[in-house]
């Protein structure tokens, strides 16, 4: 069966990470995503190391399932070509600073004039109003602003950033992707396109909904808890006899007896200090002392066996080398190996969803800057003088 977005065309006027990642999954669903880059390419992503065969991994990873054309929108002739392409598009995505896209003549009004049914996404760092409206931002800046560093770090220690400087980018991107799909659904029902606005700062706050709720209820600023949780106990890493850590989370009441059995501490099951999560949160230090002592008596491998037997959430701390061949990862296709024309064999993330009757994918490697300019022009009957 055809993929879900077969026949949908996307004009991808994005830069850096947020925008490019937002359209990438539309391509995996079958949309024809045309990444439009300025002459020389997206200078916000193309220079960022690490590189593979000279191409930034940011560019490689963000552009799977897309075609790539070069247009110089500062030239009237190329702008006219862009509008011709846009006439045949369903979706338009941009994540430029406030004012930039309007200067290029690619604001919502410009685009909707040639294509009123367009779904137009304007993504920004901080929004289009307020004291920071004119600012761009990269992932770590939003991490700093959004509050989430203040709940990360060693217990009793300083606030810490997440050094994978892409989680907020991808969170924003995934919010955009779902919004586009939602708007496509609405357009099927109403025939109308629309404008969608998303900000990195708000997306970053959204994934803290639960933590912000705790703060708003108590007015007590939450602090870093290492690997621990403010709401569930025990839910943290424990050091084992072999100096490895095991992650353990008792997140359901019915998992507590299982943990006690695995640890051979059955007397704790009905101990009123620990029997319910609320009591365990109140007696955290006491409980953790006892439990941590017990974990030190056997290696991590044993605890994983014992806890899994009792259906208590647990996991080892894995790294890339162990992950890509892990049977859980392989079986579900969570990471996939791609053969690419430009960069050799690569590991990529797999698709985040499974559709039982309209399978998405496969993931096709992205393209180099301007690779499809001539082909797309030919398909759309566009002629350009020069070049």
């Amino acid at each position: 069966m055809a993929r879900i977005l077969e026949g949908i065309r996307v004009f991808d006027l994005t830069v850096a990470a947020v925008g490019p990642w937002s359209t990438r999954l539309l391509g995996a669903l079958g949309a024809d995503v045309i990444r439009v880059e300025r002459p020389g390419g997206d200078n916000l992503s193309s220079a960022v190391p690490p590189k593979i065969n000279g191409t930034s991994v940011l560019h490689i990873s963000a552009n799977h399932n897309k075609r790539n054309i070069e247009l110089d929108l500062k030239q009237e002739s190329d702008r006219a070509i862009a509008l011709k392409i846009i006439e045949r598009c369903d979706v338009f995505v941009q994540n430029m600073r406030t004012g930039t896209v309007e200067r290029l003549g690619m604001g919502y009004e410009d685009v909707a004039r040639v294509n009123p049914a367009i779904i137009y996404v304007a993504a920004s760092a901080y929004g289009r109003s307020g004291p920071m409206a004119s600012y761009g931002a990269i992932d770590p800046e939003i991490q700093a602003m959004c509050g989430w560093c203040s709940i990360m770090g060693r217990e009793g220690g300083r606030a810490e950033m997440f050094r994978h400087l892409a989680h907020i980018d991808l969170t924003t991107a995934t919010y955009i992707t779902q919004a586009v799909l939602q708007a496509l659904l609405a357009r099927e029902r109403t025939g109308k396109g629309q404008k969608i606005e998303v900000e990195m700062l708000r997306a970053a706050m959204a994934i803290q909904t639960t933590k912000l709720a705790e703060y708003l209820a108590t007015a007590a600023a939450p602090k870093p808890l290492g690997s621990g949780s403010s709401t569930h106990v025990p839910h943290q890493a424990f050091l084992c006899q072999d100096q490895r850590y095991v992650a353990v989370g008792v997140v359901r009441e019915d998992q507590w007896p299982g943990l006690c059995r695995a640890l051979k501490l059955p007397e704790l099951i009905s101990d009123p200090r620990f029997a319910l999560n609320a009591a365990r949160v109140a007696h955290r230090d006491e409980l953790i002392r006892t439990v941590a002592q017990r974990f030190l008596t056997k290696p991590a491998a044993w605890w994983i066996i014992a806890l899994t037997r009792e259906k208590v959430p647990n996991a080892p701390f894995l790294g890339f080398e162990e992950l890509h061949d892990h049977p859980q990862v392989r079986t579900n296709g969570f990471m996939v190996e791609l053969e690419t024309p430009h960069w050799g064999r690569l590991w990529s993330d797999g698709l985040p969803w499974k559709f039982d009757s309209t399978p998405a994918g496969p993931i096709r490697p992205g393209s180099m800057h301007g690779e499809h300019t001539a082909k797309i022009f030919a398909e759309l009957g566009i002629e350009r003088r020069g070049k």
Partner: protein
Amino acid sequence: MSIAGSMAGFRVVDLSTDLCGPFCTMHLGDAGAEVIKVELPSGDPARRIGPMIADESAVFLSLNRNKKSVVIDYRRPEGRDLVARLACGADVLVEDFGPGRVADLGLGYDNLARDNPRLVGCSISAFGEAGPLKDLPGAELTIQAMAEYTASLGSIGEPPVRVGADIASLNTAIFALQAIFAALFHRERTGAGQRVAVSQFGSLLHMRGIMWHALSNPDDWYGFHLDSYTYPAEHGYQTKNGPMYFILRHGSSEDWDRFVIELGMEEYLNDPRFGNYGRRATGIGQHAADVRPIWEEAFKGRTREEIIDLVRSIGGDAVPILDYPALVSHPQVEALGAFTKIEHPTAGLFTTLAPVVRFSQTPTAIYSAPPTLGQHTGDVLQSMGLSISEIDALRVAAIIA
């Protein structure tokens, strides 16, 4: 209130609990769907997560607006039949019981789709629907640990540090939304529903995709993605009154000289580590980690507001590292209208995040407060055509509450 959202007229049956499924279905409710949250008599366990506002869990309140709560004991045949009837008139069903478990309850997608082939079913699992870990229940930290998120926090040789937010649940919910909207779009075009599935482990691995590319076959071990594995904890830059973060973007020789002199750092003017007008020495620049102590020495007598103004004056980016009190009262957050207030029958007025994305034609809205347990059982069963006496009999039999 009339509903203009993209899900207007759609009914969602939500069997999910805790954080992930409810965060997903809250967005469907914000988009105008009628979301029927089916709970066992004991209620969604999230109702007991502290802290509490009056007798309501703050976390539960933050995830369950725009829903109706119906208590049905679907572990019993009469209750299961009621849920099957609900699903028969629904557009979407969301469940998170774990692979195959919903079928064991007699509510598997294939079963329900026989009567309602237009149904979109969404299954959420911890580790995926196949493989040796498919039946292992998940928890925030165990998913993060498996997906190597803790490799980007803390320092080598020290205890693991987790991402503080509940990302294994909340980010996965966004992928569930994508899958549901895509499936509904397909159904609008073809008339056919289908089952979709997401997992927490798969979602977090997906979101680390740049890393897998970077680790595959890099030209050299160079660049911030790779460095992030070996760098120590990243605390930003200390100033007199709190941490901040900055990067230098554009710059001119004149600005750079002024900046360096203002900070009393003249001796580094021609230091190659500060090359390219300081871009190599900040943010993701290659020498940023080495020269941090030099910056912090220069910053220690100044407030972060002074440093931020100075960086901005030369076209760089600088932001404070905020905690929650500072975030909530920040003028930019206020300008965005990021928070809203909801009046709840027992918890009173509480503050929560407003819907994130703005749609010009299909606006989101808050239609109703998070429900108390079983608040809508009678209403919903009546709307299904059950009589008052039938409903009373089900109550007496403790099938519903």
